[in-house]
Each structure stands twice: as C-alpha cells, then as structure tokens.
C-alpha cells in the first residue's frame, strides 16, 4: 500500500513538474502574402474545408483546444504541428516554385483520396474536420484544377 502511495506521489510530482516545461505556440495574427487561400482565392466552401481540416497543422496559425494548456498534450500537438508544417505550410505556399507546388498538390490529392489526411487522431476530436465523400470529391476536383493551371 505504501508503495502505491509513493509511486502515486512521484507521478503527481512529475506531472506537475512537466507543466512548467514551455512549448512554443504556433500562432500569428497576420495572414502572409504567400498564403494559399489568399493567392488562389478558392470558392468559399473549399476555403472553409481547407481551414477546418488542414490549417491547424499546415499553417502558421493553429486554433488550439483548451487541453493544449496541459502537458504532455502540448508536446504531442507541438510535434504534430512541426511535422505537418515541414511537409506542407499553406502560409508559405507562394514561396514555392511551380514544380514544388505541383508536387505538393499531387500529394494533397493522394492523401485525401486515401483518407490518410486529415489524420484520424485529429478527426477523432475535431469531428467537423472529417471529409464526407462529397467533400472529398469537390476538394480533389478543385485541387486538380489548380494543378492543371500551374
């Protein structure tokens, strides 16, 4: 019984301790000139879909859930966002060459088609981020059109 108490105490201390480890927030007030939506000006419905389902991890501005105030959740999210932005950052879209843009658009189509994006760990909590079959179709159609126009 005593052991359990000690372990519980240590875990509690560790849990409280890690709350003091700071994480960097991915937030910005300005929409840069290179932003994907600004440059390509998609129809409203496409724009909403992209913002709801992609922009949290693939742009310079995340709208954080309340539990991001807590470790180790904040670490987990920070890692995901870092990885997401390294792969594709919609905020810096227009700084890419046409070749790179075409590459990224292709990957977006493939990821959405195969349901790999948005991540299931994300849609589990953000139900609105999940694409319906119909939404998938219109997104892919629009991205394909953009790809052809490059």
């Amino acid at each position, binding site marked *: 019984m*005593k*052991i359990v108490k*000690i*372990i519980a105490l*240590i*875990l509690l201390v*560790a849990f409280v301790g890690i709350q003091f480890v700071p994480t960097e927030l991915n937030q910005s007030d300005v929409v840069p000139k290179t932003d994907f939506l600004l440059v390509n000006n998609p129809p409203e419905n496409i724009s909403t879909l992209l913002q709801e389902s992609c922009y949290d991890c693939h742009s310079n501005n995340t709208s954080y859930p309340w539990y991001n105030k807590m470790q180790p959740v904040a670490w987990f999210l920070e890692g995901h966002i870092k990885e997401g932005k390294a792969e594709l950052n919609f905020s810096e879209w227009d700084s890419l*060459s046409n*070749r*790179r843009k*075409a*590459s990224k658009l*292709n990957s977006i189509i*493939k990821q959405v088609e195969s349901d790999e994006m948005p991540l299931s760990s994300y849609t589990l909590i953000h139900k609105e981020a999940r694409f319906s079959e119909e939404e998938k179709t219109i997104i892919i159609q629009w991205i394909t059109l953009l790809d052809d126009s490059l």
Partner: protein
Amino acid sequence: MKKVSVTTAIMVMTFVSLSAMSCKDSKKEHSVDAMHSEMNHDEVMNHDNLNTPNDVVDYNVQTSDAKQVMSDYMTLKEALVATNKEDAAKAGKKLESSLKSFDVSKYTAEQQKELKDIIADAIEHAEHIGKSEMDHQREHFKTLSKDIIDMVAITGTENTLYQQFCPMYDGGSAWLSMSKDIKNPYYGSKMMSCGKVQKEIN
C-alpha cells in the same frame, strides 16, 4: 518493505529523467547528421575543384554527381520493379544523400536555378520513398521520375537512356531505364510489360 518502495521510487524517477533525456539526444543526433551531410558536401566540392579547374565548363560531360544520382535512381527503379519495399527504401535514402551533395557550381546561373529547384523537389520524394509503404513509394517515384528526366535534360548523359511510359498508372506515368525492354516499376510482376519506349536519350 521500505527498501522496495525506495527502489521503486528511484526507478520511476530514473525512468522519467531518462525519457526526458532521450528526447534531447534524438534532437542532438539530428543536428550532427545535418552537419555531417554539410561536411560531405564540402568534401565533394573540394574534390571536384582539385580535379577540374572551375572555368572549364563542358556541358556534354555528365559530372560525377549527376552520374551518382542516375545510378541511385536506377537502383531504386530496379527495387520497385522487383516490388521490394526494403530495397526501395534503402535506395531512396541513398538517392536522398546523393542529391544533397550534388554540386551545381559547374553549370550556368540559369541551369543552377533550375537544378536547385529540381533537386529540392527530388530530395523530398526520395526522403518519402525511404520511409513509406510500397504504394506510396510508387506514387513518389512518379514525380521523382519527372524530376530526374528534367535533370538529365540539363546534365546530359553518357549512357543511352530510355524514357518509358505506362498509360495505366495514375493517368499515365513515365520513368527512365538503361535498357530498351519494358520492366514496369509501377506495377512490378502484376503488369511487368505494361508500357512503351517514349524517347531515346543520348
């Protein structure tokens, strides 16, 4: 009894601090890696500078860097033809490092710009091939092949290359091969002979 609890406590604390430390370590390794590849790059550059004076530019001769990239690409293509995920991943990583140490300084300013763009794109695809499942590897191989085809148009080639094309895979996909025979890297044994020679590149 007390001893046991103290030991457990120490173990828990060790575990927590170790896992915190291991996080840091992996970051460190990463930066060492980056430094390492930069160092390699310098070595390659110095090496080239010793052998060929900078002012001699001969566009018809494929540089050793361009040859290495082509040879890695072919190894990757063979692995995909054989539908071998592990070999393809290995070849992808090798290609990634060859691309990273590609010295473009011998080309004209315009060619350098184009080459840098191609290389940046190709690195990303090679990187993904290094860590993906077979179907993803093939997806990335499609765009990678386009990059390498554009690259050859600038660097030239000593060996004759065959640009081949399979109309079935993803709305039509091309690749490069050293031999005229069709061995399809997008389907492997499923549809080995699907495709035709589109162009001969000398």
